[in-house]
């Protein structure tokens, strides 16, 4: 009987002791879990801020906005993750371009716990709203030349702030600018939104060899998406169409002749630029030499934004054609926004997300 009693007591006592161990283990696990949640949260927040700190406009800015384009960070996410500094974990996520000014960074952090790495990691997710650093055009004319200009035919150079056809307004219009400026030194006077010619050239997304005749340039849409890999795709001109948000920085290394170009963004030409009619451009055109517009088969030349030439400008419209250079704050701002860094919203730019995507 004593033996039976002892066995019962030992079994029950053993069970209770095991439960106590279980409770203690659970307590330890929960405690550790709290620390890991905090760690993963810190990593997610660090990842979002790191994306902002190391913002690369060529990766995030120049493309069509969501839903056509969003960039993974790192590029191989979710298979690949970026290790957080100090070995606290890893982060990865997605950057959505909402429009030419606004971005959403959706970042997941993990504490990188347990073998194999990441298999049982705790994850936390945060979102940060960012906007490009504002760019004030600070330009004074639609056309700025270094050594005078000559016009012939139907040529219009307008300093009144205009909006390209089908574009939506982007804030209040600028006060009127002058049409033609020949006294400020042409391209040497260019500095807009804090960028110089050299800085814009260093941010070029498309580099083209000079001494070429460039024709049939226009937006290229493949399977409903803007195909930025096509060399002749220099962006669209309709904001609400595919490629309408693609604003490349095209850098022509040397002189060039354009004959049939439809595009937007920033066009940099190191040497002389000859346009044989047929140019529609929204944004900035910066010419390191002389600008010559001559009548061509494709007749009209229309630029909304601003044009700078280091040398002279010769603008000749054909009998049935026209040349129009119209100052447009919106077009200049959007071109410069495609190369500007991003900063967090000045208020309400942060959102905690409860679960991984």
């Amino acid at each position: 009987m004593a033996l039976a009693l002892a066995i019962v007591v030992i079994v029950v006592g053993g069970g209770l002791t095991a439960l106590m161990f279980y409770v203690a283990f659970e307590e330890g696990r929960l405690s550790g879990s709290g620390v890991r949640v905090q760690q993963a949260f810190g990593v997610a927040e660090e990842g979002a801020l790191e994306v902002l700190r190391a913002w690369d406009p060529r990766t995030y800015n120049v493309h069509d906005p969501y839903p056509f384009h969003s960039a993974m960070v790192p590029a191989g996410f979710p298979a690949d993750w970026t290790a957080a500094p100090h070995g606290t974990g890893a982060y990865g996520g997605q950057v959505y371009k909402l429009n030419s000014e606004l971005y959403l960074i959706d970042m997941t952090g993990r504490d990188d716990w347990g073998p194999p790495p990441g298999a049982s990691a705790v994850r936390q997710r945060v979102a940060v709203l960012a906007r490009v650093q504002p760019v004030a055009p600070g330009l004074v004319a639609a056309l700025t030349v270094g050594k005078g200009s000559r016009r012939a035919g139907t040529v219009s150079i307008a300093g009144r702030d205009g909006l390209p056809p089908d574009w939506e307004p982007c804030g209040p219009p600028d006060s009127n600018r002058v049409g033609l400026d020949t006294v400020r030194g042409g391209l040497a006077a260019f500095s807009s939104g804090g960028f110089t010619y050299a800085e814009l050239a260093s941010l070029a997304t498309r580099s083209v060899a000079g001494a070429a005749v460039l024709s049939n340039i226009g937006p290229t849409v493949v399977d409903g998406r803007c195909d930025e890999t096509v060399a002749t795709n220099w962006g669209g001109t309709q904001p609400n169409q595919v490629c309408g948000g693609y604003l490349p920085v095209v850098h022509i290394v040397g002189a060039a002749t354009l004959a049939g170009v439809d595009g937007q963004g920033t066009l940099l030409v190191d040497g002389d630029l000859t346009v044989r009619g047929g140019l529609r451009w929204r944004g900035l055109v910066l010419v390191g030499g002389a600008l010559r517009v001559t009548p061509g088969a494709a007749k009209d030349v229309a630029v909304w934004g601003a044009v700078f030439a280091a040398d002279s400008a010769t603008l000749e419209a054909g009998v049935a054609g026209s040349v129009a250079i119209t100052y447009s704050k919106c077009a200049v701002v959007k071109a410069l926004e495609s190369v500007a860094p991003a900063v967090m919203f000045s208020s309400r730019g942060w959102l905690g997300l409860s679960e991984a995507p």
Partner: protein
Amino acid sequence: MPRLKPRGFSLVELLLALTLLAVVAAGLWQALDATRRSYSREAERVELERTLRASAAILPAELRELDAGDSDITAMATTSIRIRATRQLAFLCTVPHRQDDGALAVTVRQRPLLGLRQSFSAGDSALLFFEGDPATREDDRWWRGRIRAVSDDACPDADQPRPGYRLTVELPWSSDGPPDLRAVTRGAPLRGFESVAYAVYRSPADTQWYLGQQVQDETVQPLIGPLIGPAGVAFAFFDSTGAPTSSTVRVAQIEIRVRGRTARPVRAPGTHRLEYESDSLVTRVALRNNPRPSEGP
């Protein structure tokens, strides 16, 4: 006559065995009882720790997203706080237009739609981002309004329409008249929020003290507890310099001190007295959405 061999136990042996058994049984019982009490106490303590950790997870997550400078804290005291808590973050897929009755019609995408709630309802409150002049950050604003109506809509994307919600938003225009709608761009964010109060309250169900959550004017729900009493939660408010502040618009950090107790009294080791065990946890939260100094123009 042959003598019988003695069999069984003598009375003395039996008494000795029973005495030993009683001593062993008593010892084992005591050990067993101590183990049971210890288990019960530990289980209560684990529950208490869970309560405290829940407070460290739930409250900071709500408070981090406040913009005190834009009046997200509508009331604050030592044991209570009422806030505008973000529930949705959505993005416009069309430019808004003003209806004949002055309300604003906007369409937001159904994806991505971030936050605790994945839809909108009439009566929700909203904050709409006004970009203003893209050449400066100084005029960026969040305009507050109320959603009057919600219906399904389509976002007219260039390749194909995608699901959206059409929201009719009533915005209280300033005395200068309605804002310039050119300042609201396609892709602009819209945040949905609701008024939420956190305060210590006594549950009529079990008469224990809890941190209660009250959404809008609905019934208070127990969220964290039981607490040690009416002083079970204490909020302290600090400005950006770390000094205590009583101004709702100057709050930059909030300290939350939660004092919980076990749901049932437990027997402390070495005593026969039953009493509640208590513990506390202090968390300090920096408000992430307070206005940031401008960078650049």
